[in-house]
């Protein structure tokens, strides 16, 4: 296992950024674990929606997971739906409100495990929606079990000795599957484990929203995020573990469109 170091406590500047509310954020309080990557991804999402001036057009559809807490914290319309079904629900929303910027926010458990059919068909139909998958390789909310995106060798509560392909099969590279489909306009994979990746991920999200809103087709951004709790790691070791394992299995960058 490759584990990075945190480099000490956050700098004053970093703390200032973290403490300032993003646009469209109603509160800084959340009940996610320290070191969780999801709040960083939430923030990027809200910044992008605000910068593209989509706040009075955005309708978010979320599934079930730790990330679902955004529904209470963000000042945009949200519909919470059944585990995995968000792309189907978002399709219904978008078809009757074509003027809206409709997006889903889902975890890898939600999307890669339970909702793979929904996302692939929405992509194949070329629905003008943006799907964002927060991939931490575990079911965070239920306490760290193996998902379809857990990487080979990953220890989870249901793969205690590490994910073993012979027993558990291989992780599903959802972004690559989606990118292979014709109705899809844009696919990228980013991460939130360091400042450089965060900046790039924001650009990917921005492009993904633009593409869908302009009617070019389906767009998809996978975001690798940290779950130190589900990874059985000290908080500070999350970013390094992400880089050493997840990025190897799921390489970062734009996969389709520019």
């Amino acid at each position, binding site marked *: 296992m490759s584990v990075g170091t945190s480099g000490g406590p956050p700098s004053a500047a970093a703390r200032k950024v973290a403490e300032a509310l993003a646009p469209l954020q109603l509160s800084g309080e959340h009940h996610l674990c320290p070191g969780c990557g999801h709040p960083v991804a939430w923030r990027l999402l809200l910044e992008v929606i605000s910068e593209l001036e989509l706040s009075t057009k955005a309708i978010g559809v979320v599934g079930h997971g730790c990330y679902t807490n955004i529904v209470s914290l963000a000042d945009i319309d949200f519909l919470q739906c059944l585990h995995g079904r968000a792309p189907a629900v978002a399709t219904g929303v978008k*078809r009757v409100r074509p003027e809206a910027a409709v997006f889903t926010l889902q975890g890898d458990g939600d999307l890669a495990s339970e909702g793979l059919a929904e996302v692939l068909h929405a992509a194949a139909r070329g629905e003008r929606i943006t799907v964002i998958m927060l991939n931490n390789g575990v079911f965070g909310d239920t306490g760290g079990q193996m998902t379809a995106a857990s990487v080979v060798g990953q220890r989870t509560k249901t793969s205690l000795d590490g994910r073993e392909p012979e027993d558990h099969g291989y992780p599903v590279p959802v972004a690559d599957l989606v990118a292979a489909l014709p109705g899809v306009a844009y696919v990228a994979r980013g991460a939130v484990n360091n400042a450089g990746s965060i900046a790039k991920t924001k650009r990917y999200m921005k492009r993904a929203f633009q593409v869908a809103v302009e009617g070019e087709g389906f767009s998809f951004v996978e975001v690798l995020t940290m779950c130190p709790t589900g990874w059985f790691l000290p908080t500070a070791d999350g970013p390094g573990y992400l880089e050493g394992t997840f990025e190897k299995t799921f390489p970062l960058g734009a996969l389709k469109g520019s």
Partner: protein
Amino acid sequence: MPARLLQGSDAVAQAAIAAGCRFFAGYPMLPFTDLLESMAKRMPAAGGVCMNAESEIEAVNMTLGAGAAGSRAATGSCGQGIALMQEAIAEAALNEVPFVVFNMARGQQDYFQCTRGGGWGDYRTICLAPKDVTEAVEQTQLLFHLADLYRAPVIMYGDYLISHTYMSVDVEPVEFGPLPPKDWALDGTRGGTGRSRQIWTWAMGKANDPGPGPDLHWQRIADKFEDVARAEQRWESFSCEDADTVIVSFGTAAPFVEQVVGELRSDGCPVGAFRPVSLWPFPEAALSDACASASKVLVFEVNAGQMIDDVRLAIGGRVPVVPIGRVSIDFSGMRQGEILTVPWIRDRVRGLIGEGALR
């Protein structure tokens, strides 16, 4: 518009569109398929959307999305397909998203499925069962109204006789009275104003406007379904006033039973017929009243005995409640044939009330 000869499914499709339905999604399964095809044909001209979804799970969730965004929306299937939809029907009941589900069933074995659901949580679904195409057209429009009135998913329990029968019907928009505004529907326009909206089964609210939370939210929904149970019972009874035997049946089986009752009445036999039009809420008090003079209640349904549970609850053990239907072995695969005939039902009733009942 003058009445026209229409296939049942097509009449239902036209009634749905007349009621303002602008989103429909489905996955083929006979006899529901005809409705899906009719919708696919008619929706574009009405400015609506019809989705040939990749599964029933997708179809119902698309419909939930369209309903949450404020559109009048519908989906449908039958039997196994409705089973797949139950997770979203329950979810919609709990997060209060209205839409209509058309169960164009293969028979009467979906009674439990339609009235008891199979999803999670303390919810009920209004379920109406038409006896013929004319009534299916009326109920289609009423169901869209009830869905919006109560912010809930509702079910029409039709079947292949409704779906495939040609009947001369008149499809005109019907006015059912005022409805509350759909100010809860998500349109995305309030983001950043502090008044953005949320539809969430747990009703946790926004940080600046905490919602009721699950306990109060679910209690309110439970109370709502109690109100619905009182207000929306519908039924029809036929010569029950002095009946010694009342025969209870629902949906397209009921006209066969009515025919038998008419024939036995003219033979001087004191029988009556009762039909719950709303399967949930079940018209318990009306059935109990209709059976006031009865010494026996017979239940005819084309299944192994499902509605009979509701009949027994309504009768409360006062008189015997006897099943006279059964699972049909009809080879059409629709499970409606063999026993759904007037002579078959008449023989069963005669056998049970005894020749002594004939004056």
